[in-house]
């Protein structure tokens, strides 16, 4: 009896020694991996900055204000690309935000039977799953021919207006903006819908009880209550639109000129990278890395702002 209990206690002690160190090792391993995931963000920034260093030294901040891109003379500036990135994203959002928020309202209130709503939510999610390059192909063969006709009409009758001052050349700012609208719509709808659904139903009931109509409730109670959620949805969509590469590269026309016309070709930072990186050498690689760094910082700012808004909303 005595030996038995001794064995048992030593077994427990042994196991606890090895087990403890094993366990501590396991926890440390998971901790290191978790920190590694977070550090990846920093690693990307450092790596891209290192690659960009020769160009940063040579051009400094004038890189952002210069609009030449000349690999023969090694002169580089990304003003047209920055302009194109921001304008194309804004066009995309201008179209996607009203439609996306409208769809989110449709899918969060009881306009439709629950089953139909579920199917629609799923379909909108599918829109996000289609690869960017497929949107590009569709854009080239379907969207551009349609927009060309509309663009020609706009140019003939509204050519005096700066936005339509050039005849359409096929690819351009407008097709790129529209494809960005399609690609950011699911994000806006999904996140806005989450925000609208999480508004407490007592608010809804109180508003209806006071005699407000359904849409008065939506505009004066639900949207204000979900406002920060909707704003963060729009910010996340903006970040996605600025970084979107393939569809835009195939539809924007890749011209390094700034034009006020929506029908003229333009360029974005990401399509500059997609087009030139594989064939670049020497200082051009550094200049492209510098452009990538600019894009990285831009999207980082937008994404971090969006995350902060989300975090603040969650804590409330």
């Amino acid at each position, binding site marked *: 009896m005595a030996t038995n209990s001794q064995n048992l206690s030593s077994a427990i002690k042994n196991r606890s020694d090895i087990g403890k160190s094993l366990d501590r090792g396991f926890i440390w391993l998971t901790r290191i991996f978790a920190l*590694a995931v977070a550090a990846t963000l920093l690693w*990307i920034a450092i*790596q891209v900055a290192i690659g960009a260093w020769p160009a940063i030294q040579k051009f400094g901040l004038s890189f952002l204000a210069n609009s030449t891109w000349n690999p023969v003379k090694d002169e580089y500036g990304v003003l047209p690309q920055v302009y194109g990135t921001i304008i194309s994203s804004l066009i995309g959002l201008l179209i996607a935000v009203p439609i996306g928020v409208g769809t989110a309202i*449709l899918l969060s209130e009881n306009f439709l039977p629950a089953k139909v709503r579920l199917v629609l939510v*799923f379909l909108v999610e599918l829109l996000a799953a289609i690869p*960017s*390059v*497929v949107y590009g192909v569709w854009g080239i063969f379907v969207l551009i021919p349609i927009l060309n006709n509309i663009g020609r009409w706009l140019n003939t009758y509204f050519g005096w207006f700066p936005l339509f001052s050039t005849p359409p050349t096929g690819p351009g700012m407008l097709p790129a903006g529209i494809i960005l609208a399609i690609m950011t719509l699911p994000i806006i709808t999904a996140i806005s819908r989450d925000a609208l659904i999480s508004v407490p139903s007592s608010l809804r009931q109180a508003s209806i009880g006071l005699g407000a109509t359904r849409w008065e409730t939506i505009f004066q109670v639900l949207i204000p209550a979900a406002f920060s959620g909707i704003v963060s949805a729009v910010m996340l969509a903006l970040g996605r639109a600025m970084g979107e590469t393939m569809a835009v590269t*195939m539809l924007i026309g890749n011209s390094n000129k700034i034009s006020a016309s929506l029908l003229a070709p333009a360029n974005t930072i990401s399509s500059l990278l997609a087009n030139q990186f594989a064939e670049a050498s020497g200082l051009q690689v550094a200049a492209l890395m510098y452009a990538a760094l600019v894009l990285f910082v831009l999207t980082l700012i937008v994404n971090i702002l969006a995350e902060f808004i989300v975090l603040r909303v969650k804590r409330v």
Partner: protein
Amino acid sequence: MVSHYPERSLTSASMSPRTLFNTTMTGVAFICGVLALVPLVAVLSYVIIKGFGSLNFSIFTELPPAPLRKGGGFGNAIVGTLLMVGIASLISIPLGVIAAIYLTEFSSGKIARWVRFATNVLSGVPSIIAGVFAYGIVVLTLVRLNLGSYSAIGGGFALAILMLPIIVKTTDEALQLVSNDLRQASVGLGATNFQTVTQVVLPAALPAIVTGSTLAIARASGETAPLLFTALFSTFWPNSLFQPTASLAVLVFNFAISPFQNWQSLAWAASLILVLMVLITSIFARWATRQKA
């Protein structure tokens, strides 16, 4: 005695401005919903019609043809895609799952909050930046070591960066759904943390983790931008991890912008296969999680 009770006050007047506004806005919301679905229908129907037209069996077994020649396929691109997504999964799934275990099981609030924050921001990093990063890390290193330059390894690495945040997030959520009773029961029976996690918590969350990983794989297989200058493209069968490798997505891009009819129709066929791969995995994954819930 005549009642002075205002009969109509409780029912809405059908022509009052408020009611009209209400009805109009409902119409607007429905129009928004329809507009949101138009692109989905338009893209899917075009891809299916055009893609099926150029689909045949040799597409899976043959190499891309020369311009203007009939026949041919993109077997090498399918193999290349599977290869690179495989490499990406080997890197990102273990790393992501273990990192997520820390977040739910062992972390104190503050570190976890920052790691989750960083993961969310990482998921917003443009895919082309992941490509530039992988170029700097893998391609340039391979050049320095004289092992090659553009390669499947580089492409796989870039895709892993894109998959990582998705996997961390879905695993994190899956683990949080595991009931605490299970953990307490396991610890109460004398199990160590390691045993609790690997034998109780992970098995319970496995279906959701598999779903999340499948979605990440589906997403990665459609990514093009990061492969443009990490894996490049090739018209031959992949025979080494250190050589330029074809992928379906890059093939769609290269062939769609080419002026040759036969390449364009291959691009449609490849688009169809890409879309089918992504859609079937998403539908299946959603269905699997909904079944369980």
